[in-house]
């Protein structure tokens, strides 16, 4: 089946009324859980899983996929309006989205996030259709050394995000790396920093960390009344429209964010949280005036939102073409397929073309629907700010607790999110950047396991990082990134 035949065939599948309804249902539900702080796609998909046993496999998959990419849209809403990320993927969107809202540009920020999300997803679909074969090949040729080198570069490149002093930035990254060490060491089985707690054997829950650092900390800050957001006004249609300057600034970040997200989504184990951080870091690196970031730069909203949406689409490449899930949510979706007797693997595309192409077309329909649904909703979202604090913040705490609990049904995690929240508040007060802690936490374990795995594979020969072309390219790029600031100083300014 050629690509065009496949798409035509997929259109027939995706436009069946029942499939269409499940797809839209999933997308709407995804947006909703994405908006609610702490409750993410994982929780919703877990709840929906038993239902999928009773509907067709195509309907089940398009619905669960709708939740997955729909959540990426919703996640930014609370990030921008309340500095409370709806999902870990949009935590980095708080850095510039919230300042924009404070400057009275909440409507523009939300519009930018929706349009970036849509563009990222649509271009992601294009990448999926045109390059899926190439991406799948890349996913299976990437070795541990390549992953390790790539993640080190990512850490170095993104470590300038947040506007704190270099020493404080470094401290936060290190704390994040240490937090990432908590749990059972993959290589030796040794318990690290668990203090005898069985609940910590698998490490800190990412949702608890993100929601504690950003969500609970923000709520505490507001109890103090330190930074109340200004009185929100009704958002007219005109206030949504970005200026010509905004549009000019958005295009580049969206394209780069999409590319980065598309690449990371297709690599199993990396995914959308990392890609949104790195897309933000990249924009800041290449910006002519990096000091604009953190103060309401529109690029800081466009880049991460396009990246995480693009990643959420290309994440289906290894899942569907190889049967290799890139993250726990993808593993859940594969579980849903297995129940229907479909064994995901390299032959899925040829044995179930209906499902593959139907799903691809449903991505397009679902995202179009999400854009049409969300743009008019912006005004309603902004009116959330009119809810008095005494109602809004207790409700947010409840949602955070629900969301954190839903990840693995653990009351321990609820206490964790409380403790992390207090820590996060203290860090923010002391002008540390919690985003960097989260970055270290997400990248640290990936770097460590892959570095040690690469050393095992090479039987202890570190040359593996220079012998493999991909790893070598990343090592060279990392070195260049590190020496560039020095070089820039030595070269006299013209």
């Amino acid at each position, binding site marked *: 089946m050629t690509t065009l035949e496949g798409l035509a065939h997929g259109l027939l599948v995706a436009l069946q009324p029942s499939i269409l309804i499940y797809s839209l249902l999933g997308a709407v539900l995804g947006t909703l859980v994405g908006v609610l702080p702490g409750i993410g796609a994982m929780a919703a*998909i*877990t709840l929906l*899983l*038993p239902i999928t*046993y009773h509907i067709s496999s195509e309907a089940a998959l398009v619905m669960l996929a709708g939740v997955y990419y729909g959540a990426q849209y919703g996640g930014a809403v609370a990030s921008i309006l309340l500095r409370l990320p709806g999902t870990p993927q949009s935590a980095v969107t708080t850095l510039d989205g919230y300042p924009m809202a404070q400057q009275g540009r909440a409507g523009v920020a939300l519009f930018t996030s929706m349009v970036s999300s849509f563009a990222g997803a649509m271009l992601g679909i294009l990448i999926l259709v045109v390059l899926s074969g190439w991406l799948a090949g890349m*996913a*299976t*040729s*990437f*070795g*541990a050394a390549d992953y390790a080198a790539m993640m080190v570069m990512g850490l170095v490149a993104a470590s300038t995000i947040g506007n704190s002093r270099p020493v404080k930035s470094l401290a936060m990254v290190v704390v994040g790396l240490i937090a990432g060490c908590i749990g*059972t*060491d*993959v*290589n*030796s*089985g040794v*318990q690290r920093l668990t203090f*005898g707690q*069985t*609940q910590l*054997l*698998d490490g800190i829950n990412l949702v608890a960390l993100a929601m504690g650092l950003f969500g609970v900390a923000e709520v505490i800050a507001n109890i103090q009344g330190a930074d109340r957001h200004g009185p929100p006004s009704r958002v007219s249609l005109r206030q949504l429209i970005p200026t010509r300057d905004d549009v000019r600034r958005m295009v580049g970040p969206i394209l780069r964010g999409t590319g980065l997200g598309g690449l990371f989504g297709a690599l*199993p*184990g990396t995914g959308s949280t990392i890609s949104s951080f790195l897309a933000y870091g990249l924009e800041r690196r290449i910006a002519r005036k990096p000091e604009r970031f953190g103060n309401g730069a529109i690029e800081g909203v466009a880049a991460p939102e396009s990246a995480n949406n693009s990643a959420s689409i290309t994440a289906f490449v290894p899942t569907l073409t*190889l*049967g*290799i*899930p890139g993250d*726990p949510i993808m*593993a*859940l*979706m*594969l*579980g*849903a397929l*297995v*129940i229907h*007797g479909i*064994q*995901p*693997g*390299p*032959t*899925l595309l040829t044995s179930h073309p209906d499902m593959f192409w139907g799903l691809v077309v449903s991505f397009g329909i679902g995202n179009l629907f999400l854009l049409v649904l969300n743009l008019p909703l912006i005004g309603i979202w902004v009116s959330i700010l009119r809810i008095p604090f005494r109602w809004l913040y207790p409700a947010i705490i409840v949602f955070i607790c629900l969301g954190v609990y839903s990840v*693995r*049904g*653990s009351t321990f995690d609820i206490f964790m999110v409380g403790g992390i929240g207090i820590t996060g508040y203290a860090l923010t007060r002391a002008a540390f950047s919690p985003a960097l802690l989260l970055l270290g936490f997400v990248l640290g374990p990936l770097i460590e*396991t892959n570095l040690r*795995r690469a050393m*095992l*594979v090479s039987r202890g020969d570190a040359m593996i990082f220079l012998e493999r072309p991909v790893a070598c390219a990343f090592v060279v790029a990392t070195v260049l990134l590190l020496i560039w600031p020095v070089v820039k100083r030595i070269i006299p300014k013209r």
Partner: protein
Amino acid sequence: MIGNFKHIGIATVAATLLAQGAAHAQDWPSEPVHVFVGFPAGSSPDTIARLVAEPLSQALGQPVVVENKPGAGGVIGVQQMLSQADTGHSFGVTINGPLTTSQRLVPDLSYETASDIAPVALIATSPLALTVPADFPADDAAAFIEEAKANPGDIAYGSVGQGSGAHLTAELFADAAGIELFHIPFQSYAEVTTSMLAGEIDAGFMAPSAALPFVEAGQLKMLGLTSAKPFPQAPDVPVLAGQAGIPDDFRAELWNAFIAPAGTDPAIIERLNTEINTILADEALQQKLLATGWNVAPGTTADLAARIEADTALWGKAIDLVEAKDQ
């Protein structure tokens, strides 16, 4: 004030009596039954629990609620089951690890399998398959062993973690075959597969269901199974036992079982065992389980107890081997 406390006291006593009363077999179950699973939704223990829970709920006339309490290789699920107050309505579905190896591998484990767990019924078993990339220079177990003997310690294999079934099975196999293999731990079969396809590692003991799609695509080969009998999902793959000097009784299987906290009324356990065995006799359910990589294994509570004891000894030996290597 005192009056209020009296009321609370009476209420507590009444609640306790009710709870105890509920655990008697005659009118059991009088309320929804909870089944704790130590793995997330969509994982294979979860799928097995849900496939059994639905018909079980019909047979018992009460909802059977599957509760996912993932973590620590399934240990959290068992701990959660044990921490529930209403014995008689709290059960668990677990993979073998938390009952057979966690005692050795998890420090300060809060329960003892022998004294805290009451076996109810074995549900299903799965062998592991010795799997290699398609271009590996061996097409059967004998050739694999020969290759390993020619290059001691050179063959790197992936497992799903230090102390996992895949790791311990490989060590038992290497010991039985008299060869030396090089262990590289991963976190999932998906990672082991990717690494094998990328040419980083040479082998792995994989769940047949995880390896099969790649075998069909001509990317991986399965050389032998660790079960005593051939596995219906991969009928062409021979068993390792009895091949190329491997002892005839070589066996290392994963399984999932239905368990209860010790102290659960024996009549309730008997009833559950009967119901579960009836459910497992259903052809459609057997096919569904097989599609997810599991072969039904009906039996008595005593069968399960014997299985736990035998496997604790078997995996214990494997852990000894690993520990001896590390020193």
